[in-house]
């Protein structure tokens, strides 16, 4: 079984230094170290577990700038077999429409039984790309998976989709696109062996896929459908009030505070 995982390098949220470039309001990717988007690590982990259980391998597909292989090596060290990077100068500053079209077009050149994506990206992502990619490629779309059970003989996949009241059991033929969640399980840390092995794994770099053209022209920042107007730091929160009194007195003060703010 071959699983392609859509993986995006994002600025490390733990660094605290993410910013937009002051001139064009694009994400300043040089300002902070890049990491694999946390939600994509859950997708990778789920894909690795499934190929370990059923045989096969995991490949990754990334659309990003030319330094992405550094980040992609982390996914290879976890156990992915190979990666494809779609990169082109014009793609910097791509919007959702472009990203979706480029990923969908790039998928057409890959072989897979399943495609996995993360629930959203931490760098301002809206969790909308996977549904769009599935629609453009024409894949069955199974989102918010808490459990994934492929049946290779029947070429079918079953997914527990988290619902507002529990979960729905979904079933679709393969190939299909599945959105992973953290409920699938903790991502592994790369082992030393994995890190060593990753060095000799292939990351294929390609330019713009041929049929990713938009009605309005080529994908990328020049066809962007949205534009940032302003950015500002959020207003600072008021100073913290600290209560160190014994429990009963502390509780009384909390209740008074909530009442004062008309919360209760």
């Amino acid at each position: 079984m071959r699983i392609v995982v859509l993986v995006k390098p994002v600025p490390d949220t733990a660094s605290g230094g993410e910013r937009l470039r002051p001139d064009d309001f694009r994400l300043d990717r040089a300002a902070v170290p890049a990491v694999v988007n946390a939600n994509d690590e859950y997708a990778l982990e789920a894909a690795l577990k499934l190929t370990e259980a059923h045989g096969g391998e995991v490949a990754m597909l990334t659309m990003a700038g030319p330094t992405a292989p550094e980040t992609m090596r982390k996914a290879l060290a976890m156990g992915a077999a190979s990666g494809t990077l779609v990169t082109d100068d014009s793609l910097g500053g791509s919007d959702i429409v472009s990203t979706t079209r480029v990923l969908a077009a790039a998928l057409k050149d890959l072989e897979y039984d399943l495609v996995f994506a993360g629930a959203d990206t931490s760098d301002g992502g809206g969790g909308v790309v996977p549904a769009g990619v599935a629609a453009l490629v024409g894949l069955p779309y199974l989102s918010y998976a808490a459990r994934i059970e492929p049946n290779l003989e029947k070429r079918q996949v079953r997914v527990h989709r988290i619902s507002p009241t529990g979960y729905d059991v979904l079933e679709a033929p393969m190939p299909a696109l599945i959105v992973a969640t953290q409920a699938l399980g903790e991502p592994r840390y790369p082992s030393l062996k994995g890190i060593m092995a990753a060095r000799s794994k292939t990351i294929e770099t390609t330019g713009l896929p041929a049929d990713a053209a938009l009605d309005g022209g080529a994908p990328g920042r020049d066809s962007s459908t949205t534009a940032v107007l302003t950015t500002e730091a959020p207003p600072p929160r008021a100073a913290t009030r600290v209560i160190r009194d014994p429990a009963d007195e502390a509780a009384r003060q909390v209740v008074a505070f909530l009442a004062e703010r008309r919360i209760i």
Partner: protein
Amino acid sequence: MAATGPAGAIWVHGESAPDGSLARISTEVATLARTLGEEAGCEVVGIVVGADPSAAAAELATYVPRVLAISEPATADHAAGTIVGQRLAALIDRDKPAYLFAGAGPEGRDVAGVVSALTGLGILVNATAVRWDDGPVVEMSVFGGKLNTTSRFAGEAGIVTVRPNVVSAEPASATGTVEPTDAPGELRLPQVEIVDRVEAATTAAPIEEARIIVSGGRGVGGPEGFKLVEEIAEALGGAVGATRAAVDAGWIPYAQQIGQTGKIVKPALYLALGISGAIQHKVGMQTAETIVAVNRDPDAPIADFADLVVIGDLFEVGPALLAALRARAG
């Protein structure tokens, strides 16, 4: 961008809850869209696609002047996002509204992604506020709340996904009309069958839309400790949230997790019990109007951004708070 006559219509995706009623997020999105429509002088139309859209459509009509109800039997036993998205995309191609507003929760995101892909409309995601200036000007909170941006569409059309609790839902002064409508075109995309629907054992209220959230972290110590969290939540009429540490430990389901890889919430009150306030948790709750924390460590990060912090043991402060809340309720 100069005004070119009356703006095109604003459409609202009316999301159906599992029981066929209108999802709460849609009442908020509809209120927001109506306000913008009044300002822009354009038509506001709600769209409900469902196996039996009548209940959700009737409810949506209390918020907007006109609702199109599209009966789509396939959604009874198939994953709805792709189906609803195709129907909306076909209607948009036919009627050419300017903007589509949807909730930024799982259902709205699925629908927005499909509509964008099929129509080529851009999306401004996770709006935390929207004003009108010859088109929607959308405020978003990015990088885990470190920055607020405003954005607009390059052209005069697009999709906006709106976070919960951005506006409070308010019905319109007059109830609108519901028009049963046929959607043009065929459903071409593969359908995903729902072979079973399983109700979770927990009856925990959904956290995304809750006005009050009482959350527990590692400090709560175990499932027993969460009983205290639940009781306080109940006394406050709120929902129960958690950190990833508590979820990973198996004390509470993932659906209740708040943070970077969980849910982003914006309640009026966030009461954090035994939570350190790690950055990955903070990004999910820092836009709460009021944050109150109980933590025995005065140096926990949450003490830096809470409005009020009680330095103490949650197993002492918690029961005292519960008693005080109950005494107040009488």
